[in-house]
């Protein structure tokens, strides 16, 4: 009990910091709201789907960025997909960087694209790591713990 409560507190704190640090936005909360008894791990399920899909895109974009000259149209297309997926889980920072990347694509700014992409990859990795830890803890704390919908 004690332990559990502690876990829950920890969980809540983790969650909150994700928001506070700007990694997650309210879309994540909406996902949490969709979670119910029928789908108790819905959020984790969706996040997992996202990372599987987005990892593939990241690799594709990376390869595209190695090409010369850069095919901005293609890059833009890939990024568009990536952005959509990230938006769905509420990955705030990553989403912002995706938008930036696309703007550079439009402008034909290869340099800008490359730089932005690096930032994006970093934030993407960070969020992924944090979420994974979060879900792990949530599983430990028990199904009810995930959601305290603060705000």
């Amino acid at each position, binding site marked *: 009990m004690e332990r559990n409560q502690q876990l829950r507190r920890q969980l809540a704190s983790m969650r909150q910091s994700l928001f506070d640090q700007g990694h997650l936005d309210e879309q994540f909360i909406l996902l949490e709201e969709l979670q119910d008894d029928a789908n108790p791990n819905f959020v984790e399920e969706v996040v997992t789907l996202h990372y599987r*899909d987005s990892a593939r895109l990241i690799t594709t974009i990376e390869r595209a960025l190695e090409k010369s000259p850069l095919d901005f149209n293609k890059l833009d297309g890939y990024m568009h997909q990536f952005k*959509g997926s990230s938006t769905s889980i509420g990955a705030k920072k990553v989403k912002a960087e995706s938008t930036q990347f696309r703007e550079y694509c439009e402008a034909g700014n290869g340099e800008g694209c490359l730089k932005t992409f690096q930032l994006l990859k970093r934030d993407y990795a960070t969020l992924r790591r944090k979420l994974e830890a979060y879900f792990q803890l949530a599983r430990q704390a028990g199904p009810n713990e995930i959601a305290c919908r603060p705000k």
Partner: protein
Amino acid sequence: MSTASSSVTVSDQFPAGLRVLVVDDDPTCLRILEKMLGTCLYEVTKCNRAEIALDMLRTNKNGYDIVISDVHMPDMDGFKLLEQVGLEMDLPVIMMSADDSKQVVMKGVTHGACDYLIKPVRIEALKNIWQHVVRKRKNEWKDLEQSGSVEEGDRQPKPSEEADYSSSANEGNWRTSKRRKDEEEEIEERDDTSTLKKPRVVWSVELHQQFVSAVNQLGIDKAVPKKILELMNVPGLTRENVASHLQKYRLYLRRLSGVSPHQGNSFISSHSQEPPYGSLSSLSGLDFQTLAATGQIPAQSLATLQAAGLARSAAKPGLPMPLVDQRNIFSFDNQKLRFGEGQPQHMSSGKQMNLLHGIPTTMDSKQLVNLHHSAQSLGSLNMQASAHGNPSGQSSPLLMQMAQPQSRGQILTETSGGQVPRLPTSVGHPILSNGAAGAMLAINGIGENSRGTGYNSVSQTSSVLNFPLNHSAELPGNSFPLGSTPGISAGMSTLTTKGGFQEEINSDIKGSGGFMPSYDIFNDLQQHKPHNWELQNVGFAFDASQHSNSLQASVDVTPSVLVNQGYSSSQRNVQNSNVSAMGKPIFSVGEGSEHGIALNVGQHLNSLLVDNSTRVKSERVTDTSCQPTLLPQHFGQEDLMSAILKQQQDGLGPAENDFEFDGYSLDNIPV
């Protein structure tokens, strides 16, 4: 139209259960949407490939109410999917994208998306998507009403077009008519004929009468489907139904006036040539009027027939009326046809001779008999008409028409001989021309066989004539001047149009010997000489009025004709009696047509014939012991019709029911 609104009525649970197909290549989004839509209590199907989505939509035509699709997809552009869905299935499509730029949103609009959602999609946005479904259905109803008669016209000639029609993009409403499930269920769309997928409106006598009176009220020249529809105020009847019936009617009128029928143009006007037809003019399509003209059939009945005929096409599944009318029509025929009988029995028989297409034919044998009778009467009427040259005023007009055209002589004179009992074939011929022509034809066809007289031509035409339900025989020996003229030919051809139907009939008819197993008889008629049928007049109504055509087109007629044909063969046996049986199928058409039902009958027949995939087995005299003279035989028409109807109802299966008609379900006769 009230129907429109009613069609959009949603169940209490709505929008719960709304069937949504969501297409997105992003699995994350897809999963989220699925969950959200599920929370909205929708029935969700997800798909990550546009091509697969299209397949799913095509396979399960009516399986979805709305589609939500992402814009950017690797295998197909979302807008392309949007277009396809709009064209093929005419479902509402919502586009979504993370891209909210104005151009993209605009593109969605121009491509016909009913909404555009920006990702991430909120559940609140999804909660209201049902409005697009409702709105679309409502609009489609309106579209249906407003769709011009042009379409009708297009459909006239080919029964199969109806199905095509429904498949065309703008037919979407037909497709989506699934929305009007209630109606559809009522109508019990039968796919007896592959061509007829839509629920057919059965233009019963009553309905036709309503139609006619509406047309008269408006004035032939001013009668537009929309107004007619309004005047008629028949729930479930669509503007299109009316339009197609109107077209037939016009042809019918034209035919009556001896003008070569060309699609609906002069229809009423040309029709107006025949003064006596005044009322006839109103006969829509169905040559009921003609039948009525014969005096025997109360114009009303004819109208009913016509109406029924029209209704047939128009009557949406939900129309019970047409059904009923149909019966009337048929019964009407019976009554009317009685040449001497003159009883105004007209179609009010009330039985639903749904012989007329699609609508679940409720024709029971009685109806058929009625038809039969009607047909007979018609025949007799014709005879009279011809004989007198002017049967009692009103009804006469029809007959007159027939008689007039008949002057060609053959028509009635030959058969009619006053043989009333004989199946109005002789009589029917002339009369049939009017509307009954169709029926008459059938009758004639039948009569022909039996008679041998005038019919000879009929025999050939018989195939065509079969239409005259075999009233076998009674068909005024006139061999129906069906051919009378191009009209008939047209009518005949229409029958042929039924093509499919014909084939069936033909096959069945084979027995008939004389029959041209294929509806081609009609063609033959036209070609060779109308004399065969002498249907000249026959155009009988068939041709003359669009109705007849419609009948024909609906193949209904043809079936009848064919039926007759086939019937004829059986006729041979039974000749008259058999005719009934045989004629039945045809007769159903013919019977009805006798009065005017001829058309209907034809139609019914067609439907009967066609629908039931009844091959007009002429042999099957089915229940009615096929009295030779269709006229007297009540069963004739009714039975035939019933048989036919039953057949239809039973699907194409061999209509073993009364009529043993095979598969011609008149019902499906595209009106």
